[in-house]
């Protein structure tokens, strides 16, 4: 099949970007979208031109590196998938496909389609961890966790931190990402020690990075490659309120 690509090219964060058209002739429907870009890049390299810069790592849908907005939708129009798992059979022969980077002030473009997602790391550093004693991990059966709780925590823990939620949100809000991390750790016994401080500091880091607020449109849930539910945002809002109220009755 033959495809036409309209790709965002940008030298660096300080230079304005623009769209460049690239042809992708003789590609097969079984290729992934990243393999399509690899093919285009091989051709560009042979012609002595600058290849398209894009992020990728595991290429099996679990690392959260790939980050392309394809025809206006982060990770493309197939639900519950990352770009590396999006195949060309979902596109039509001769179609023009527009590819853009994640667009948000906290995610500045490094080059072409690669953005700096360091803002997510700073949110994790602010509270996305648990305190554990060094040494051997405790025996699993010594720490009973109800099955339902473990399942719910796992639903939140499925977040791979790709940033599609920010990319799709009309406000570039990181609410779903932060909610997933806050909920995952608040649900489990290991996360109780920092429970109140965590939500407070992670939300503070989220706001400091310049993400917008949550308008409850639920677009994030629709494009999340792990289909993480917006009900975790409700849980984060609940955690934040509990933390706020409890802090009023402490001496510090």
């Amino acid at each position, binding site marked *: 099949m033959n495809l036409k690509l309209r790709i965002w090219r940008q030298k660096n964060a300080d230079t304005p970007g623009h769209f460049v058209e690239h042809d992708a002739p003789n590609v097969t429907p079984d290729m992934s979208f990243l393999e399509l870009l690899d093919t285009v890049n091989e051709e560009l390299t042979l012609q002595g031109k600058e290849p398209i810069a894009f992020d990728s790592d595991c290429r099996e849908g679990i690392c959260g590196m790939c980050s392309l907005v394809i*025809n206006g939708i982060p990770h493309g129009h197939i639900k519950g998938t990352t770009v590396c798992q999006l195949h060309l059979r979902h596109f039509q022969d001769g179609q023009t496909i527009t590819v853009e980077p994640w667009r948000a002030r906290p995610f500045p473009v490094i080059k072409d389609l690669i953005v700096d997602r360091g803002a997510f790391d700073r949110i994790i550093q602010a509270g996305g961890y648990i305190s554990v004693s060094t040494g051997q991990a405790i025996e699993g059966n010594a720490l009973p966790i109800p099955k339902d709780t473990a399942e719910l925590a796992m639903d939140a823990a499925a977040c791979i931190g790709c940033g599609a939620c920010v990319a799709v949100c*009309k406000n570039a809000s990181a609410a779903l990402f932060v909610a997933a991390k806050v909920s995952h750790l608040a649900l489990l016994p290991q996360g109780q020690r920092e429970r109140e401080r965590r939500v407070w500091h992670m939300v503070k880091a989220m706001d400091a990075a310049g993400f917008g607020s949550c308008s409850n449109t639920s677009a994030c849930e629709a494009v999340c490659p792990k289909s993480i539910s917006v*009900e975790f945002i*409700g*849980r984060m*809002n609940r955690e934040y309120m509990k933390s706020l109220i409890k802090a009023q009755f402490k001496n510090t």
Partner: protein
Amino acid sequence: MNIIKALFQSTIGKKYVMAVTGLLLFGYVILHLLGNLQIYMGPNAINGYGALLHSRPALLWLARVILLAIFLTHVGTAIALTLENWAARPIAYTIGPSPYTTYASRTMFISGVILFCYIVYHVLHLTVGVVQPGIMDFKDQLGRPSIYRMLVAAFSNPWIALSYMVAMGFLYFHLSHGISSFFQSLGLKNRAYSGLILGFALGAALVIFLGFLSIPLTVLTGLVK
């Protein structure tokens, strides 16, 4: 951790403010609707209700000041949040918006601005009395201000009736997202209740819309005169 600072400085705190003031305004809209619907009980009922509200000027003004404070807090917080949200995406996508969202949820700020303008006009029209000055002076047999005749005179003008109905359409839009958003922003929504909350939001918004819509329609068709 200062609670006032937290409420007005963090994004989640501001959403709490939006939710609580939004709920209070929703409550006011219901009271306003119940007041208006007394037009179907005849002039005596609605004029008596109006006289009751005006019987204690101090209480009336206290209620007005509180309502204005709630309203301005809702509007001010909305403006602050919207400016932050716009700043969070300096370069727009070429293709948008996301197909997975409702029109009402994406346009809360626009419907809010339109409602703000309409409410200013509405207060100037039927509280201050500058749009149709004569209608404020109608009196009934007991010498009370005749709200009944005032409403009939106002809605007999098709343009006033039409603009009112359009504004109520925007109110429906705003409430259809706002009511369910209230529960989510305050963390009161979970999987078990989300269907019920969504149904309640749409149902309540629709009942309010139809309730307000019925008055200009019955006046225009001559059922209320």
